[in-house]
């Protein structure tokens, strides 16, 4: 009798062990930096992925974007990094140079990622010396949102609901200012110490075919073109076509309340604008002002941080999620972002979404401003110099000189 019980217990334990092993789930720690409008959409994607994958459990941690990279880098360096993380494509080189993320070519092919399906413009930003370090998730360029009612007041709305920009863009804004009831024809994020106005400058500088700001450890900015872009913007602010000093949410709300007739900001706000009552808006890619259609933009990508002990299973699970999330880019597009895969853009689910198709082309106009580990420093030097022009402290020429000096100092360290 006793033996029988013992046998039964043993059998039960054995069965327990094996079935446990069969159903063993791999947990993937996943860090991201989403906030405001887009965080909920990412949470929904993770939830749906977890529901449809028995063996993988993705565990999301959302961090504050201002301090995101500081935390990601220090955690990874001390061996406490996540298994999967979001990175802007403009920060990928910096992370790869520091050895903080791992190349994904082979690993990706193992889980069935076909790199040729991704948008080439983004993928080239994630490629360093022939190795791909990131799975592109989206692109988010600046686009131009407009309030249809206010444009109609100034007779600037075409039959098909697009803006009638017949002369120059400034003529358009001037007419909008004089003939509509809007307080401001346009708004963009102009808090002096924030990146908003720098993004507009970057777009204009590249529309003039400006050279890269830095090549190797030399400053190679095209000073004349940099000045021309600044002068264009200065005039815009001086004529009060766009208010200065606006905080981020303030600038969004000026548009939502109908105080500003148009809004120049990133595509991530589409989802928020759609949920704004009594706002009849449309959207187009950023207007072409100079020689080409270049526009500031960045791209969210998925990267695998370096870990001391390599857990192949975890890495494959992490990339399985990356593949699934990019294959289901239409879920992410709900927030407003442009999917990274041509195959997603062709899906009916995406094509039927309002607004997105109006700016999907902008993904090809994006110029990234990555400069390796100095990306943040260079942006800040230029932003500071620009803000002094807006505040009438220095001229456009002096600003470019100041920025160059600042960047040279940065590079000499």
């Amino acid at each position: 009798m006793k033996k029988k019980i013992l046998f039964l217990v043993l059998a039960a334990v054995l069965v327990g062990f094996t079935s446990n092993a069969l159903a063993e789930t791999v947990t993937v720690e996943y860090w991201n930096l989403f906030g405001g409008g887009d965080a909920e959409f990412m949470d929904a994607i993770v939830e749906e992925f977890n529901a449809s994958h028995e063996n993988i459990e993705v565990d999301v941690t959302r961090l504050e974007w201002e301090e995101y990279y500081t935390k990601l880098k220090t955690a990874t360096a001390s061996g406490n990094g996540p298994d999967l993380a979001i990175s802007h494509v403009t920060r990928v080189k910096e992370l790869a140079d520091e050895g903080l993320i791992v190349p994904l070519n082979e690993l990706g092919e193992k889980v069935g990622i076909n790199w040729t399906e991704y948008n080439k413009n983004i993928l080239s930003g994630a490629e360093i010396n022939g190795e791909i370090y990131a799975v592109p998730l989206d692109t988010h360029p600046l686009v131009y949102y407009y309030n249809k009612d206010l444009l109609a007041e100034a007779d600037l709305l075409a039959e098909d609901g697009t803006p009638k920009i017949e002369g120059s863009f400034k003529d358009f804004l001037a007419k909008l200012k004089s003939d509509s009831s809007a307080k401001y024809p346009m708004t963009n994020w102009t808090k002096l110490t924030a990146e908003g106005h720098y993004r507009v400058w970057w777009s204009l500088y590249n529309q003039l075919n400006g050279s890269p700001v830095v090549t190797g450890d030399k400053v190679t900015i095209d000073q004349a073109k940099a000045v021309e872009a600044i002068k264009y913007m200065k005039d815009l602010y001086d004529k009060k076509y766009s208010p200065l000093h606006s905080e981020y949410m303030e600038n969004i709300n000026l548009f939502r309340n109908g105080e500003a007739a148009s809004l120049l900001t990133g595509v991530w706000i589409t989802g928020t604008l759609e949920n704004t009552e009594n706002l009849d808006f449309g959207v187009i890619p950023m207007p072409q002002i100079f020689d080409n259609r270049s526009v500031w933009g960045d791209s969210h990508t998925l990267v695998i941080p370096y870990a001391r002990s390599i857990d192949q299973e975890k890495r494959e699970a992490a990339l399985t999620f990356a593949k699934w999330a990019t294959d289901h880019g239409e879920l992410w597009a709900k927030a407003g972002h442009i999917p990274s895969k041509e195959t997603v853009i062709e899906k009916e689910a995406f094509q039927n979404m309002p607004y997105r198709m109006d700016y999907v082309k902008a993904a090809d106009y994006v110029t990234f401003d990555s400069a390796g580990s100095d990306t943040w420093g260079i942006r800040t030097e230029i932003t500071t110099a620009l803000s002094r022009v807006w505040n009438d402290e220095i001229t456009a020429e002096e600003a470019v000189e100041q920025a160059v000096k600042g960047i040279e100092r940065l590079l000499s360290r």
Partner: protein
Amino acid sequence: MKSYNQLSDRYPFLKALPFMLPFALVYGIFLIYPIFRGFWMSLHRWTMIRNMGFVGLDNYLYMIKDPAFWGSLGNTLLFVIISTPTIVIGGLVLALLANQKIKGQLFIKIAFFLPYVLSVAVISSIMVYFFQPHSGLLNGILQSYFGMEETIFWLGETKLAWFVIVFATLWWTVGFNMVLYLAALQDIPESFYEAAEVDGATKLQQLLYITLPSLKPITWVVTLLQIIFSFKIFAQVWLITGGGPGTDTRPIVQYIYEVSFKQNSMGYGAAMAFAFFIILVLVSMAQIYLRKREEG
């Protein structure tokens, strides 16, 4: 062989040692060691995660020639000079007010102290909502009730931005100084005032010849603490003005933070932090010396 007891009778220090050891250990690991480690880092080119090699005093030489270092150090000094007297005197005045035997005295104490319990992120957000130009509360009030036509850029003009930062810090931290002063006020014996009353001293005379002289010791403490707090200013500036316009309100701690964590140069950041540490030590020593002379 001598026993521990005999030994410790001759050297009383040994008796104290076991009591001090736990704290000394923590103090050593979290305060003394990082100071030396920071100095060590400042002699290297050091990214956020690794040591790129010894550079001797290069970081310090770079610092001396870096206008951004001197600019932000100047900003911090300016803030110390403006904010210290403002917040110390503010604390004193509020304490005198709250110490009056009037109705609602408890309410005054609580109201003045309340902001101090809020975190810096909260008070900074409140300030941004209050001072932002196009939909801020203050401009809104001025425009709708006082007929102001133009828009004031509270955070976009250097002088106004400084005003906002000092105002925010005053509102946020003055309650702490008030509490210190209140405690000292309550320590002044009631009999002094009764005696003065008998001698026919007015309220003003009582304030000038009893209250203020009795507060001298606490004023040293409050001033010393305030100067150290003011030197360390960073978070509220970072969150309210971001150091702007341009870099006009960027304090030294923000610059150290930017260089170390945003520009990836821990080595240079450590050099500036060490220099700043020396400055703070000198300031504290000067204060202690002055105080000794005063008392001596």
